[in-house]
């Protein structure tokens, strides 16, 4: 029983990682209705920027804030320069551009920073909270940060005019344009926000898995699974999905199917959810109109 509990807790801790990346995926989906395959690599690249800043002697939180700003600008620039021209192209063109971004960011980061793993500092105490041996302070802190981001997002989309305008722009661009919303900029803003959230996720993930250019490779698939389980357009659902995937992966891996098939859990979850309930647990169901 203790072993089971321990697996669940460890699963919640890794689930926190998936949740934070899934949140960024949901963000970009809400703003643009795209699944960004390059999201993980964008977060990884931003985390390297943070690492450079900290190595240059900046205090942690200053580097943190600067990185978030940097990531925001990176997101806006990518949208304006790279995504814009394919805005009205078929889905395939967009997917191809995402894949291209993925390999470019991965390869360029490896070139600049080499592939040796790097430690990334944590803002939280090194000793576990209350001396427990299940979850480290950083893992708890990271979950806290993810929940805080979630709350901020919720407030932003629900109560601020800008947030409402962004949602409108994503859901119905034509009508939004008629009421005076600058749809193009809303999309860019969405990218910026998603990249910023991604950078926070990256900085929370890196102390756990260590910083290297392939750090997000394994995580991305689980994060996609998490986002889908929760409902790709529901931030709260994505966070819930993250925890669920983390726990499922650990419990199934340890007690049922063995560690060899963990990735298959993600595969089955993704296909299963898409087929059985594409809107996930908490997503809205859309009907296509002819």
């Amino acid at each position, binding site marked *: 029983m203790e072993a089971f509990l321990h697996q669940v807790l460890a699963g919640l801790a890794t689930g926190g990682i998936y949740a934070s990346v899934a949140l960024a995926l949901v963000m970009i989906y809400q703003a643009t209705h795209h699944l960004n395959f390059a999201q993980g690599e964008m977060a990884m690249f931003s985390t390297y920027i943070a690492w450079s800043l900290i190595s240059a002697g900046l205090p942690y939180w200053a580097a943190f804030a600067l990185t978030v700003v940097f990531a925001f600008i990176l997101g806006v620039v990518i949208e304006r320069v790279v995504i814009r021209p394919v805005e009205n192209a078929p889905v395939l063109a967009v997917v191809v551009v995402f894949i291209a971004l993925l390999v470019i960011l991965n390869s360029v980061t490896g070139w600049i920073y080499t592939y040796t*793993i790097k430690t990334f500092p944590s803002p939280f105490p090194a000793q*576990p909270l209350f001396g427990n041996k299940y979850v480290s302070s950083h893992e708890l802190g990271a979950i806290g940060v993810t929940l805080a981001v979630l709350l901020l997002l919720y407030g932003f989309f629900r109560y601020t005019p800008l947030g409402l305008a962004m949602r409108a722009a994503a859901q119905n661009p034509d009508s939004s344009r008629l009421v005076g919303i600058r749809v193009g900029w809303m999309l860019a803003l969405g990218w910026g926000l998603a990249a910023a959230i991604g950078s926070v996720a990256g900085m929370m993930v890196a102390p756990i898995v260590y910083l290297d250019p392939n750090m997000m490779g394994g995580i991305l698939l689980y994060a996609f699974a998490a986002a889908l389980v929760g409902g790709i357009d529901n931030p709260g659902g994505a966070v819930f999905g993250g925890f669920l995937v983390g726990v499922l992966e650990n419990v199934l891996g340890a007690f049922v199917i063995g560690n060899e098939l963990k990735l298959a859990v993600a595969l089955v979850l993704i296909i299963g959810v898409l087929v059985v309930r594409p809107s996930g647990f908490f997503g809205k169901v859309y009907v296509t109109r002819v």
Partner: protein
Amino acid sequence: MKRMLVPAAALLCAALASPAAFAQKKYDPGATDTEIKVGNTNPYSGPASAYGTIGKTIGAYFKMINEQGGINGRKINYISYDDGYSPPKTVEMVRKLVEQDQVLLVFQPLGTPSNTAIHKYMNSKKVPQLFVATGATKWNDPKNHPWTMGWQPNYQTEARIYAQHILKTKPNAKIAVLYQNDDYGKDYLKGFKDGLGAKASLIVKEVSYEVTDPTVDSQIVQLQSSGADVFFNITTPKFAAQAIRKAYDTGWKPLHYVNNVSASVGSVLTPAGLEKSVGLITTQYGKDPTDPTWKDDPGMKKWAEFMKKYYPEGSLIDASNVYGYGVAQTLVQVLKQAGDNLTRENVMKQAASLKNFETDTGLPGIKLNTTADDYAPIESVQLSRFDGKTWVRFGEVMGK
């Protein structure tokens, strides 16, 4: 007069000792009066690109040798291709090296699957597949594959040494094993079980992980709950660091063996936390650039100067760069020994007659020896324990 005599006498001795000294120059494809073509494949892209730095270090080392005048007056022409750690690409690139670039030998192709893919080809073409960059055991097979030779101590030998140490110091151990689910992890596991022999039942739990797993926390929890008091950690650097940290954080205090692959102070133990690494046991054959013990070591100083001058963008804490230096130095020794007889056959013959050769980067007492029936250059290693700052070697140099 005396000054003239010494070289004259030396020449005479050499002439008497080896009639080959006066033999004509002999060349196979890839060797001429002015150059020796050496081919290589490395993963500069793809999932294993972390190891691409080895190929770059080797290139830098040959550049240094060429600037210093080359080998017996010949410059090394080093041709290295990217295979992305994909065996089909390795086959293609190696065929290019052999059939089109006409290299004398293929040196240090990296990865067990990649080398398996070209194993048959190299041996049927009779081109040296020299000092492959993998620790699998199958490379030491001079009878069936006389054209293939490894370099580093093989995984099974190393694992057997841990097994013996456990049997000697803790005969009633309950052992937990974590291994990477690929050829490398399985080779270690096999060596370990062979080493335990009849006592293989001491292993109470073995779990694997995949390189795509974000963390190995779940695996550590599984191992811990098995009640084991000895932990054999067969992981690559990133996962080794995670495992060491998680084992410590959960309050599990086993006797912890970590494989040589992940014994770097700078890139594994520091990320894991030095205080969490106290008491780890590993084996070593090379010097760790991040271990303070070697701060003033002449060999490592040479390495650091080399890095500064010829490979300034390379990392000074990456053990791969030390590895690349050591193996390149070994090849240079082989080619020196080959003299003017640069046939593929003679290259293999010389590679198989290394006598007590020591590299700048090898541990004191670790000597490279090969014979016609023994294609394993480095077979000796030394156990070391981590004291919180540095690896402290203990016991004697083990293996042959």
